[in-house]
């Protein structure tokens, strides 16, 4: 039973300017549950894309052997033909189609192009039974909760005669009951001989279900742990995985800074937010936090912990429903119903998804910079375009935005320069509190350092700053104080002197009591 079903040998994958994977090896035994761990951006998803043929053969170096044969996939279909099925974190179901239609989507049971719906529904019912989902196959998928949709995805995989099932963060959006059910199902599948690769941040889960665990850091494999062997040796598995995930030196990654703390600028108390469409889900659950002038406060949490949701719900109720709680600016409660209220109150939110939420990519630098504070260049209602250009020019210089002129279109700039434009845009609103959501995502190392320096300068000028990040070294390198968030709850608060990556990771993965 110890034969390897999958061997990925020295996989190296390069993107323009970045090496995403460097000589990665992954061996998965037939019939085991194999966990892959790593920080966000470590290269887990890229590795799975290489495996499933999303990154076709030829765009990477290295070899993939599946069932002892060397394989090269040029598309997702090729890997599925051999029984490798990947289920992504963002479910790929069509909400308006029925459960049965979704299960057989792209793989329709038809004779001469004509579908026998009776057979399809019967077969779907059998698959649903297998995954333990008691739903009518003709129910539209959109009527099911996320947990059940996840099960439909697995039923879909089973319909394809799956040998190796890859689950990317399968429980990130699930509540505890649904998670438990899903993990149980994965164990059952193992009994039936289905091999499973599970990518997860929830280390408790991994320790419970995985037979072995491979840890990836910065695009390289750190080690593969045989879980049974290690726990027989009495090791603390979670601790070992965390150490593997975060163990890197932090010298010279972060600029030095002097900290002078002032009065409290911003505070929220007892903040609750529900999911916009699934009302039963509490996305933020009773969070309270505060920031002082000149302070950089980190919010550390894994994907799906509710970091962005917390920030956006504070920022003019841009996310969620049934939002309750109180926002204080300088100790006074303020009412923030819309984004313009938030801007007026002195709050700026720099989104983690700058292309979607931060920028107008078809427009130029100057109009993006002015877009959140048009009143400043249009005191009497009409815009002083010369002043606008002068303002943009100032930021281009002070932020070191690399573009020939402020008339350059945003879509043509690099990620780092785009990020500087978003920062300029929000600085021009003259905020007192800056919420920076993953401010260095998708940015190269040099630009990261520049962004860190800008943040330090802002703090030194007396602004209150919240940095949301899932990169722990960044949190430790940048912040004065760190809150940890897990499943919508603040699970801890540490001054940076007391914080270690291990300690933070423990708090970030702390599940509900």
């Amino acid at each position, binding site marked *: 039973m110890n034969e390897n079903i999958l061997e990925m040998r020295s996989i190296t994958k390069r993107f323009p300017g970045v090496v995403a994977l460097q000589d990665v090896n992954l061996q998965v035994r037939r019939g085991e549950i194999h966990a892959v761990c790593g920080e966000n951006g470590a290269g887990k998803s890229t590795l799975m894309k290489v495996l499933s043929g999303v990154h076709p053969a030829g765009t990477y170096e290295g070899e993939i052997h599946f069932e002892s044969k060397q394989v090269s996939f040029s598309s997702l279909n090729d890997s599925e033909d051999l029984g490798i099925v990947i289920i992504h974190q963002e479910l790929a179901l069509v909400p308006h189609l029925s459960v049965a239609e979704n299960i057989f989507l792209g793989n329709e049971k038809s004779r001469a192009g004509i579908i026998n719906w009776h057979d399809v529904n019967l077969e779907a019912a059998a698959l649903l039974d297998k995954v333990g989902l008691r739903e009518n196959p003709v129910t539209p998928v959109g009527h099911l909760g996320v947990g059940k949709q996840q099960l439909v995805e697995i039923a879909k995989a089973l319909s394809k005669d799956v040998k190796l099932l890859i689950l990317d963060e399968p429980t990130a959006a699930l509540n505890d009951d649904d998670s438990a059910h899903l993990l149980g199902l994965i164990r059952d599948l193992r009994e039936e001989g289905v091999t499973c690769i599970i990518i997860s941040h929830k280390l408790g889960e991994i320790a419970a279900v995985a037979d072995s665990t491979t840890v990836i850091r910065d695009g390289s494999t750190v080690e593969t742990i045989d879980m049974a062997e290690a726990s027989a040796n009495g090791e603390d598995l979670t601790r070992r995985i965390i150490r593997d995930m975060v163990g890197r030196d932090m010298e010279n990654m972060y600029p030095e800074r002097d900290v002078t703390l002032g009065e409290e600028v911003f505070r929220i108390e007892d903040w609750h937010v529900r999911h916009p469409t699934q009302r039963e889900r509490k996305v933020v659950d009773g969070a309270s936090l505060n920031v002082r002038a000149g302070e950089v406060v980190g919010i550390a949490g894994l994907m799906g912990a509710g970091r962005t949701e917390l920030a956006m719900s504070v920022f003019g109720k841009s996310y969620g429903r049934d939002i309750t709680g109180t926002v204080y600016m300088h100790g006074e409660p303020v009412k923030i119903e819309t984004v*313009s209220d*938030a801007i007026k109150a002195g709050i700026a939110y720099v989104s983690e998804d700058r292309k*979607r939420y*931060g*920028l107008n990519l078809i427009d130029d630098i100057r*109009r993006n910079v002015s877009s959140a504070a*048009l009143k400043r260049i*249009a005191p009497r209602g009409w815009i002083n375009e010369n002043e606008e*250009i002068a303002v943009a020019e100032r930021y281009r210089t002070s932020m070191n935005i690399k573009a020939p002129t402020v008339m350059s279109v945003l*879509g043509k700039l690099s990620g780092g320069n785009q990020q500087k434009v978003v920062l300029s845009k929000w600085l021009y609103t003259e905020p007192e509190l800056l919420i920076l959501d993953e401010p260095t995502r998708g940015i190269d190392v040099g630009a990261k350092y520049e962004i860190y320096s800008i943040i330090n300068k802002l703090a030194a000028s007396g602004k209150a700053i919240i940095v949301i990040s899932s990169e722990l070294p960044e949190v430790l390198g940048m912040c004065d104080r760190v809150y940890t968030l897990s499943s919508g709850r603040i699970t801890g608060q540490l001054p940076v002197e007391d914080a270690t990556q291990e300690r933070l990771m423990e708090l970030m993965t702390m599940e509900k009591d």
Partner: protein
Amino acid sequence: MTGTSNLIELMTRNLRQSGIYIAFVLIVLLFTVLTGGTLLSPGNITNLVLQYSYILILAIGMVMIIVAGHIDLSVGSVVALTGGVAAVVVIREGMPWWVGVIAALITGVLVGIWQGFWVAIVGIPAFIVTLAGMLIFRGLAMQVLDNVSLSPFPEEYRQIAGGFSNGLLGGPGYDLFTLVIFALASVGFAVQQWRARMRKLEYKQPVEALWLFAVRVLLVITVIMAFGWQLANSRGMPYVLVLLAALVLIYGFVTQRTVFGRHIYAMGGNLDAAKLSGVKTRRVNFMLFVNMGVLAAIAGIVYSARSNSAQPAAGNMFELDAIAAAFIGGAAVTGGVGKVQGAIIGGLIMAVMSNGMQIMGIDQSTQNVVRGVVLVLAVAYDVWSKKRSSVSA
């Protein structure tokens, strides 16, 4: 900052915008030759302005709607409805002409509120809302008019579209007053350009070389005065032209220089980012449709005044001409790009082509084919130039 580099930069930087002007000049030249000069004759120029003014008025509102990422299919029906309301008030009820105008404008506002409510507040796609509006307002126009056309309008009402400022200052064979107005417009243009140039210098921004500036301003003034001269040699200055000029100036300013205008472009460029920048998107969308309703009412008044009647079938297919004008004028199908002046040029291209082909005696069916082909080519050029610019990046 030499003159030549500026000239090249001026040409290349705004290729998408300047391409349309070049195309316009070429089309005018082409049809001037094909019609043996009739196209630019005084009588025909006057006729052209009168005949297409309502399309241009609609195009102004339409380009704003398109920039915001919507579309309005109902404007033709609204033209019929507002013209019908004016006719009922003025002709059937015998009220003064200005009551009719006000009634038509109020009808336009109500239409705008109706459509704005569904698009902005409820969130139904504008394509659907205005498709419904196309049916609703056409039906209402028929009901208001009891399915018959009403005519004739009193003289004062007809003056809106058919009136000329003629002979106020007398003149030897040409209308002096028209020339004076055009001369004032020319001076105004030159002064405005000069002041803008001075302001740029004040802010230490690059400006074109002085000779280039002079050539450009003189060129524009020459075109303006030539246009005025032809009008003066015909029936003088049409009131509609004054109205149109005022609308172009006002809406050019609103879209390019006001916070409201900027918000339209921001929403069309990236709706989510606009929302997170504090743009009150509902309010902007609502205002856009109310504005479109008012402009459609103005077009309805002009059209009914020109045809001296209100017909249930009036304004049929106007929406398509207005949409075509916006797209030929450089508006992007995906929103976020487009200018009022571009839409006007786009509308004029359509007007010159139709008018030229009419003079040449080409039948309506061929005209439709040609106009359709031009629309596709114009948007194809837009798509092509966008691709090219993203490749060179």
